[in-house]
């Protein structure tokens, strides 16, 4: 196992390297006009050239790449170009990440607590009233386009329950709606997949054996079926926890939460290359770690799963 973990880590570092280099090259393909903002037409040739030189964009691409890696290995993510000119990226993220992280983690815990049991109950009473009710709930939530649903929740719930329309970090009542809105969608997807995996397991032989032994229905469901059904869900869990720092775009726009939600999209559109590189580096590291931890978690929960080569190969 240790050897496997070391190999995966080495692979992850190579992937991270490739992603960063690829992003660096792709960003250099972006149109030059983008770097000057709205005042492009008003600037003279000399000013433009000096602005490019200031960002190091006049050098050949391999020199830029070398400089980028040199500062990266010194632990410096660099300074923002356009999003907040000459402001250290680490400081920008330091302020933004806690909001997205807190809201994301709370809503994830909430949706796991509600969604997984909901799916389990739906599977337990498949085709009965509880299943139909749950299916109707999921269908309605999934049916509306997310942007519309979120806006609807914000406008109508805030007036029905007298909640504030906008987010305020000191007033915890304003945290309720954003968290609830994020949770609603993930509750549905957890419930939907939990139901699916449990129903796929219900007809397995081990369930029949347990029933023949005289184990009660609920005990079979929650001790045996549930455990087996949870394995494929577990692969996504670490990734989802980690990627809560990426934030939710719709929610953060609607409630004016100063989180990371649309940061990546904004800085790509602003062509703030250093910011894009820093964010992609962080997000990619999270994504890769999530994938890896998911595999480990899956192997821990289900001892039949093994990632280590055991003699036979295919």
């Amino acid at each position, binding site marked *: 196992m240790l050897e496997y973990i070391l190999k995966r880590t080495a692979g992850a570092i190579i992937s991270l390297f490739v992603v960063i280099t690829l992003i660096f090259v*792709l960003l250099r393909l972006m149109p030059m006009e983008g770097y000057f903002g709205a005042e492009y037409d008003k600037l003279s040739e000399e000013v433009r050239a000096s602005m490019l030189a200031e960002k190091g964009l006049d050098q050949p691409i391999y020199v830029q790449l070398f400089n980028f890696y040199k500062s990266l290995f010194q632990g410096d993510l660099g300074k923002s170009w356009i999003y907040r000119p000459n402001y250290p990226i680490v400081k920008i993220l330091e302020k933004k990440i806690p909001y997205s992280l807190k809201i994301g983690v709370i809503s994830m815990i909430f949706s796991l607590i509600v969604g997984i049991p909901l799916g389990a109950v739906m599977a337990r009473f498949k085709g009965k009233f509880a299943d139909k009710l749950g299916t109707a709930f999921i269908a309605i939530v999934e049916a509306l386009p997310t*942007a519309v649903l979120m806006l609807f929740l914000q*406008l109508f719930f805030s007036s029905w329950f007298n909640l504030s329309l906008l987010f305020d970090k000191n007033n915890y009542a304003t945290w309720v709606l954003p968290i609830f809105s994020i949770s609603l969608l993930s509750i549905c997807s957890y419930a939907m997949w939990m139901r699916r995996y449990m129903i796929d397991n219900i007809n397995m032989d081990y369930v029949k054996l347990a029933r023949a032994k005289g184990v009660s229905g609920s005990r079979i469901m929650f001790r045996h079926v549930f455990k087996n059904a949870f394995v*494929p869900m577990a692969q996504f869990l670490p990734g989802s926890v980690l990627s809560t720092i990426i934030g939710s775009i719709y929610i953060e726009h609607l409630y004016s939460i100063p989180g990371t939600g649309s940061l990546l999209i904004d800085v790509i559109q602003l062509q703030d290359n250093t910011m894009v590189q820093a964010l992609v580096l962080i997000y990619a590291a999270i994504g890769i770690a999530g994938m890896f931890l998911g595999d480990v978690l899956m192997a821990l929960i289900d001892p039949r*799963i093994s990632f280590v080569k055991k003699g036979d190969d*295919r």
Partner: protein
Amino acid sequence: MADKKKKLLFNRQMRRIDELDQHIQEGLALEQADKELPMYDAADYTAEQIAAIDPKWFEPHGFNEQDAERTAYSNYSYWASTFKNFWRNRAARILIVALIAIIAFAFIQPLLPNQHDPVTINNDPETGMHLRNLAPCSEYWFGTNAIGQDLWARVWAGTRTSIIIGLVVALSDLIFGVIIGMAWGYVRSLDKALTEIYNVISNIPQTLILILVSYILRPSMTTIIISMCMVGWMAMARFIRNQVVIFRDRDYNLASRCLGSSTLRIVVKNLLPQMVSVIMLQTSLAIPGAIGDEVFLTYIGLGIPTSQASLGNLVEAGRVLMMDSTLRYQLVFPAAVVAFITIAFYIIGNAFSDAADPKNHV
């Protein structure tokens, strides 16, 4: 009371004993009848009589594998019974008919008489002004939008665009996702390479790809489809891969490997049927998912240009007007189509997945 109950129980027990007794008697009678049948013994026959028997009766028949299997043959077919089971679900049956009707109508609509063009800006013939934000009426069934285009025609044109996007993307997700996911999960030598490829591709922001693609090509349905296909297969592949990882080392696969089954056979015959339900649900969610993605892309300003109607840009245009109750119809109509398509695919996909378990078929 208790006494009566006891009597009743006793009665039942006695009746059962009677039944059993009758059964035994029948069996004994059958056995007796069997004994009375004539018995044949070689000692009763003369040598001539034995020689007269046709020698073909003593030739070995030989072994034919197909004939041997014949007793085990039944006309069970997995897909046929899955469809039969699926068709028994009334809600799914109604929705699939309605869905086909809606999709067919979206493609037939421009051929019908008296239809407006989805991009023409309609002017009032008397004043020459744009017919802006006209509420639904007999001429413009769903009203007109902010620049006077017919919403009825736009909604159907948008449905066409979005359905094409959804189907193409879902099909490509299904094909590439399943093939790559299977290889990724099962073939150990590919595992490492594919994991790293996944890690690289899934971490390139789609926004960046879209901006670069639209910088080279003009943003259109094709660029949206291309970028969605480039990203979409990964979710499916990861899904399939996780399922394969769970099942690949189970005993039946080990047995199959010991019997010398090829990798392809194990994947297609042992693993794939195990995952039909998950694949079906994921695919049926991919179609509304693609429509939702398109709404999202419009939201961040990278969607299909408004000159080509799509459910994405119609919903986004309507969302902006949501607060004005007189203009809310501009959101309601496209959102209703999106909602219907999503619900229909979700319920059909779920019903199909429920029907896909062969243990429910008999």
